[in-house]
């Protein structure tokens, strides 16, 4: 079974600064997807960024980028130029590349609460 670990329950960053959220995972599969989701107080889970394991290039979406280290099973999220609207819970998630059956479910870490201060 796959597991996802987020060891930082809370993080804080000043507006306009950069912050990195950590995530490690454990799997015996070679092909999979990794995701970062944002959950604001509204509870709506919003996909921030995804990474395909077969791609060596790190994914980037505007101010959000990842550092994917497949051998180390590490998948960190970097938020640049932090904004007040970035304050939320951030969840790292894993999904098998197989899309059939329960293999398509997402396995989540316990989350990191990000505070953004002025």
């Amino acid at each position, binding site marked *: 079974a796959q597991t*996802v670990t*987020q060891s930082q329950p809370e993080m804080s960053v000043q507006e306009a600064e950069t912050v990195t959220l950590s995530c490690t995972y454990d799997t015996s599969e070679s092909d999979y*997807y990794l995701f970062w989701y944002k959950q604001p107080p*509204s*509870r*709506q*889970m919003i*996909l921030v960024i*995804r990474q*395909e394991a077969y791609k060596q290039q790190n994914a980037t979406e505007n101010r959000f980028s990842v550092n994917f280290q497949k051998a180390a099973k590490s998948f960190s999220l970097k938020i640049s130029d932090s904004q007040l609207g970035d304050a939320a819970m951030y*969840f790292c*998630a894993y*999904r098998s590349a197989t*899309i*059939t*059956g*329960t293999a*398509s*479910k*997402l*396995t*989540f*870490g*316990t*989350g990191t609460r990000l505070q953004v201060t002025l």
Partner: protein
Amino acid sequence: GAGVSQSPSNKVTEKGKDVELRCDPISGHTALYWYRQSLGQGLEFLIYFQGNSAPDKSGLPSDRFSAERTGGSVSTLTIQRTQQEDSAVYLCASSQRTSSYNEQFFGPGTRLTVL
């Protein structure tokens, strides 16, 4: 609407009562998932529906939990004889199985409080 919707938004019930939570997936999405988010925890998979296939119930924590999906669309999660440990946010997600990486779109969840 364009997104996944869930009702009710919040539900308060007494221990021992039954509750029903509803999920309306995005039109055309064949896959539907239920997850549970307990306080301080990540999301825990509960059950998965794909088209007309039998659901995968491997994540349901006890036989007090059940779910159905009518007509391949709306899904209802039922919790019988609720216990205080059932208090959590219940999130529903849907996806298009044929999409390249099967992105799951989430609803806003139902916060269940069992007194």
